[in-house]
């Protein structure tokens, strides 16, 4: 349920409940993206370094 759904109510229960759900999903998503992004950057970085060394 999102705040745009008609079943949504702006009460404390909904805010806490879904707040935590979306917070957890965000943490998981950000964590995964961070690890993924760092990996990609490391890979690219290493590649460039090697390229530079060759030149």
């Amino acid at each position, binding site marked *: 349920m999102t705040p745009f*759904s*008609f*079943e949504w109510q702006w009460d404390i229960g909904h805010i806490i409940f879904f707040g935590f759900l979306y917070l957890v999903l965000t943490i998981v998503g950000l964590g995964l993206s961070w690890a993924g992004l760092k990996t990609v950057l490391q890979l690219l*970085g290493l590649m*460039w370094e090697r*390229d530079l060394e060759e030149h």
Partner: protein
Amino acid sequence: MTLLSIPKEKAKDWIEGICFFILGFIGALIVGWFLFPMALYSEHTQPIDFNHAIHLENVEGDTLTEKCLYCHEFYEDGTFAGIPRIEKCEDCHDPESPMGDSLEEKKFLTKYQAQEKEIPWYHYYRQPPCVYFPHISHVKMAKIACKTCHGDHGTSELLPVYQENRISGYSRNIWGKHISGYKEHTWDRMKMDDCAECHTKKGHEEFNSCFTCHK
């Protein structure tokens, strides 16, 4: 180290990559917007190409709603007739003296009226069997215009092609014309959220109670 420092021999790979991405993106859009709806909905033409506009001119009634109600009437107990049966058409259409020289009228008179056969209409606006919708509460009590939910259907000259969801068997008018569920007008969609949206907007949140619309 920035992306600008990509060596020249790598630049070709990058351009190729971006091109492939754009091609794939456009391809995905074509699939999502055109091919998928084509696969999802089967199309049927109505047995008779009914002209609502002509009928609207010729029926009695002071307001547009009253004109609609001339054929799509309420019974005494408040139930709504929906698409009229042929006896209603017979009130005006006489096989002896057709009202015009339209081919569609001829089709009606020979194929259905003469044989006393009901016309097998496709229902654009039929809700799933779990839904209860009292027209009388909306039309008579709340005084909502037919157009609010049915759009320009009442003034159209041609009947649109009926599209049926192959999986659920429901009309496309329920899900809405846009496959994305995007809605511009009140009549673009007929899902639960649309009922609730209107109830809320009109300050009738008590009608968002489940049993108001579900049976």
